[in-house]
C-alpha cells in the first residue's frame, strides 16, 4: 500500500514511486547544499544517457523526478537501475553539471520599486547599505526552477538571511521582482502575490516563449544581483531590445 523507500541503510537517498508514471529519487527531506548538488548531478547523469521509458527528468531542491511511460518500461527494472546509479558514487560531493552559466543581473535595491528592502535588512540585523553589499556580492545557485515558468529558487544566502515569510501577503509584486525569505531568493516570472519580501527589482525575463531559448536559466546556473540605480532598471524594463535584463552572462563550467 505505501511506497516503501528503497535504501540499503534505511537512510537517504531514497527512491519512491508516484503512482505508475512517476519516480522520485530524494537525497534529503529538507534543503541543504549537498542534497541540491546531488540532485543536480544525478539529474545530469540521467540526461547524459536517457533510458527507454523515461520521458523526462526534472530536479527539485533535493530530488530528481522521472516521468515514466509505464507501458514502455518495467517499473521494477527502472527502480533497480536507479538503485545502481545511486550507489555508484557519492552524489553529495559530485561536481555540478557542466555548461553552467553566471548571470550578473542589474538590480535596484529598495526605492519604491522594491519597497521591502529596509524591513528585510533590519530583520537580518544590517543597515540598508550593508544589506545591499551582502546581497549584491552573493553568487546564488539556481537550485531549481518551478512554481511559474522559468522561475528560479536561488540560494543560499548567509544564515542572517534566514528570515521567516511575512504573515501578511503582499497582494502583487511585478515580474522581475527579487524577493527573499528563508536564506533564498526568487526572481519572479510573472506578477504574483507573495509572502516573501520584495527587496530588489530587475528587468530580467525568466520566460520568453517566443525566443530561443525560452528559458534563459537552467538548474545549476548562478545569479548575482549586481546593484545599479533605479533609472537604469526602469529604462531597461521598458525596452524590448534589452536581453536578459541587461545581464552579463559568463560560462562558469
Amino acid at each position, binding site marked *: *500500500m505505501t511506497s516503501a523507500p528503497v535504501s540499503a541503510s534505511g537512510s537517504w537517498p531514497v527512491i519512491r514511486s508516484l503512482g505508475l508514471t512517476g519516480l522520485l529519487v530524494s537525497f534529503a527531506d529538507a*534543503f541543504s547544499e549537498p542534497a541540491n548538488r546531488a540532485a543536480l548531478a544525478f539529474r545530469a547523469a540521467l540526461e547524459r544517457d536517457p533510458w527507454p521509458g523515461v520521458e523526462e527528468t526534472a530536479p527539485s531542491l533535493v530530488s530528481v523526478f522521472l*516521468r515514466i511511460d509505464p507501458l514502455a518500461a518495467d517499473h521494477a527494472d527502472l527502480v533497480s537501475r536507479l538503485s545502481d546509479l545511486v550507489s555508484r558514487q557519492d552524489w553529495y560531493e559530485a561536481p555540478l553539471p557542466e555548461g553552467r552559466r553566471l548571470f550578473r543581473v542589474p538590480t535596484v535595491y529598495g526605492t519604491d520599486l522594491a519597497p521591502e528592502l529596509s524591513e528585510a535588512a533590519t530583520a537580518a540585523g544590517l543597515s540598508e547599505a550593508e544589506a545591499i553589499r551582502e546581497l549584491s556580492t552573493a553568487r546564488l545557485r539556481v537550485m531549481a526552477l518551478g*512554481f511559474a*515558468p*522559468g*522561475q528560479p529558487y536561488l540560494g543560499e544566502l548567509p544564515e542572517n538571511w534566514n528570515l521567516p515569510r511575512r504573515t501578511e501577503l503582499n497582494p502583487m509584486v511585478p515580474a522581475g521582482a527579487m524577493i527573499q525569505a528563508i536564506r533564498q531568493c526568487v526572481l519572479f516570472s510573472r506578477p504574483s502575490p507573495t509572502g516573501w519580501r520584495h527587496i530588489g527589482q530587475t528587468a530580467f525575463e525568466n520566460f520568453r516563449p*517566443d525566443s530561443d531559448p525560452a528559458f534563459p536559466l537552467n*538548474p545549476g546556473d548562478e545569479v548575482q544581483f549586481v546593484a545599479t540605480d533605479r533609472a537604469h532598471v526602469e529604462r531597461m524594463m521598458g525596452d524590448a531590445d534589452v536581453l536578459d535584463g541587461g545581464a552579463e552572462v559568463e560560462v562558469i563550467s
Partner: protein
Amino acid sequence: MTALIVHRAGPGVTVQDLGRPGHLAQGLSRGGAMDRLALYEGAALLGQAPELAVLEMVGMGGEFEADAPLRIALTGAPMKATFDGAPLIWNASHHMPAGSRLSIGGVIEGAVGYLHVGGGFDTDVRLGARAAQLNAGLGGPVEGGTHLPVGTDRQGATGMVLDVADRFSGGRLRILPSVQTGFFDEDTRARLEATAFQRDPRSNRMALRLAMDGEGFALEGGLTVVSEVIVPGDIQITGDGVPVILMAECQTMGGYPRIATVLPADLPRAAQTPPGAPLSLDFITPDEGLAAERADLAARNALRSNVRPLVRDPRDIPDLLSYHLADGAISGHEEEHQ
C-alpha cells in the same frame, strides 16, 4: 485561409491540444486539454491526428460561423448544439456549410465539451504547441470577434458517430499511492476511500477541489514537506484538510503532502465531473493500474474502427434526430439545464 468566425464565446473557451510535455525542469507544466480522451475521439471521427488543436469549452460554448465549408466534430461533455436552429448530435462529425451558424450552449452532462474542425485550428505554435496556458501567459480565452484560422483538411466523411466511454457524471476514481501516502495512517487512508466526495464548484483548469462533509485529512501536526515536482492527477491535502486533484494546468512544484495520485486513465472522468456530482477514491494495486492503462490504450487505438455512419439514408435524419432527443439518447435531463 479558411477560418471559423467566433461571434460569441463562453468564458471558458480556449484553443487546446495535447499540451507541451518536457518542460517540467523549467517550471512549465504540460497543460493541454482537460479531457485528453475527447481529443482522440474527435480525431477518430474526423480521421485525423489527435495532436491537432481544438476548442475546449468549459461549461458553455458559443456562436460560430464557417467562412468556407468545414468538417466539424463535437466530443466531450454533451452540450446543447444547433445548426441553423436544427439540433445536432454529439460525439459525431458534421458538414458545416459556409455561412451556416453553429450554436453551442451549456453542458447537458459532464463539464467540458470540445469542438474539432477538419485540419485543426492553425493558430500560432508556441513552444511546440497551440494550447492556451493562461497561468504561463501563453494565449488567452477565445473571445467574440476572433477569426480562428483552420488548417488544411485532408477531407473525409462526415455524418459519423462514435459510442464513447461514459464519464460525464462523476463516480469512482482509481488511485495509487504517491510519495507521502505512507505519512497518512491506515485509518485515514480507509476513510479517504469511504468518503462520499462531490466536485467543489471552485475548480478550474489547475485543480479540481473535492467537497465533503465531516473531518478533513490534514496530517497531524501539519507536517510540512519540501517542495517537489507535482503532476496532473496528484491529490494534495491542502491546509484545511480537503483533497485537491491537480489538473492539466497545475503548477510544477508544490509543498503540500500528496495522499495519492489518480490513475491517468481516470483523469478524463475527473475532468468531466460536473460541479456537485459525486466522486469516490479507490486505491488499486500497481498491477491493476497497469492493466487498466493497457486497456485504456487499447480502447484509444480502437476508436477509429468504432466510428460508424450516423444514418444510412439521409432522408431519415430529421426523424432520427427527434427520435434521439425524445428517447434521451443524447440526455434525459435537458429540462434541468434550460
